[in-house]
């Protein structure tokens, strides 16, 4: 089957989820839409099971931290429709106060560890996940290290400050 165009894909999503899914970009031809956490499970299931779309492959699941935004943590899904060779990126923003989002591990078994990794590094709590524990970091860690406020190096170090380089 031929590749699904971004317009058609967006049209189908809009037909099904009026107002819940909005396009936020299409960098390098990869359609990026934003969904909300109430509808994300249905959006993912729809994309996976719809006969014309068949996004059966969960390529990647991760998160990004934008400290300056209101919804600081953005969970990012990359799906791939193998029959039409189309990719889509779905984003869901979460506030720091409410980091709950429904799990995708009921839709794809492979989401299990990807969600554990996202929890481990960003503290996103995937509701309904069978075994939401830390995966790469030690169990008794108390912070979520991929958040921007977590320093990589000694914060008192000054020799790499931007103002030394005129930035």
């Amino acid at each position, binding site marked *: 089957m031929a590749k699904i165009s971004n317009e058609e894909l967006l049209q189908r999503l809009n037909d099904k989820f009026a107002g819940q899914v909005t396009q936020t970009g299409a*960098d390098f031809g990869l359609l990026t839409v934003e969904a909300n956490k109430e509808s994300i499970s249905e959006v993912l299931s729809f994309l996976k099971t719809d006969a014309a779309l068949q996004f059966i*492959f969960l*390529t990647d699941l991760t998160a990004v931290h934008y400290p300056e935004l209101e919804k600081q943590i953005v969970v990012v899904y990359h799906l791939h429709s193998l029959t039409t060779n189309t990719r889509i990126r779905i984003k869901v923003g979460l506030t720091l106060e409410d980091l709950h989002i429904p799990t995708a591990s009921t839709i794809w078994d492979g989401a299990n560890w990807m969600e554990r990794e996202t929890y481990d590094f960003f503290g996103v709590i995937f509701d309904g996940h069978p075994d939401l524990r830390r995966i790469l970091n030690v169990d008794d860690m108390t912070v979520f290290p991929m958040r921007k406020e977590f320093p990589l190096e000694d914060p008192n170090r000054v020799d790499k400050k931007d103002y030394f380089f005129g930035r």
Partner: protein
Amino acid sequence: MQNHPVYTDNDPQTEYSTLNLGPTHPATHGVFQNVLQMDGERIVSGVSTIGYIHRAFEKIAEHRPFYQITPLTDRLNYCSSPINNMGWHMTVEKLLNIQTPKRVDYMRVIIMELARIADHIICNGVLGVDTGAFTGFLYMMEHREEIYEIYEEICGSRLTTNIGRIGGFERNFNHIAFAKIKKFLVRFPPVLREFEALFNRNRIFVDRTKGVAAVTAADALSYSWSGPILRATGVDYDVRAMEPYSSYEDFDFEVPVGENGDVYSRFLVRNEEMWQSLRIIEQALAKIEKEPTDIFHADVPAFYLPPKEEVYNNMEALIYHFKIVMGEVDTPTAEVYHAVEGANGELGFYLINDGGRSPYRLHFRRPSFINYQMYAPMSKGMLLSDAIINMSSLNVIAGELDA
């Protein structure tokens, strides 16, 4: 996944023994820990513990300029580092809209396919060792050494290669490199043929591997498997064919698929992939001869470090050198997802750039991490010895697992 009988509560034996397989066990080829509940030789349940060599690459990458991230990618799948290096360079080139010359693409293809062969040599050789046949491993290992010598000729190092630069290569392939590649193309096929003759119809090997850890295509897709182990289940998903990068569309090759998704199918798929890689390298060598011989990088002075003698004698080169090293070149604000077909599956780079000198966020889609998560569930009901060869055939590389 397996239909072996699992003893139930009705059996006289009521307690299972706990076995810590790993984190350092000679049969696991890396730092993997699985805490298994054993009923005699049979696995009742297992829990994988990973992260023993987690090095926070994604965090480090947020603090480094693009060209300094290449050495991090070396250490993902260290059995085929060049594929990771090239994947990263192509991600940045996609972000920066850099068109690489055809010759660079073909040079990259040669290196990536050599890396794929090197990786498959290890995996299939070790699979032989784990089933009790050491010979094949030794035959093949000599030729991995030849591949490492080719790397050495091209970039100076062997394991963590840091090969190439954004925009192309740091130096041209010299005539010794080409001679070594050609020598490899002559010397390796007979050995691979002999290796196949040793294993493919070997009664002991087939009995040990056929039907072991068979996975259906539906399960494999649900677990987001990719690479040879997905193709062994019969799904012909190969990034090189689906979304050709680095001019793979110019090459004539097949995507081998298996039937049963078991250890034996994975072995056969990897073997066949080595033949296909050899085919690709041969075509690439022929194509390179038609290209101008002095081109080995794209003309992107703002991102490609100029040669040292120019830096000392040429004003523009000095400016560019300074701007590159200090990270003063403007980059577009964009999000990129770029995938390459790593030796273990789809190796993806999700790069969010905010125009700064280092990525705002970089996420590696690591095939080993995603492939390995089925290991504990699929081991249920399996014999311990089968679980060991199952792990070998998944070819999980600890560096890529933990990142």
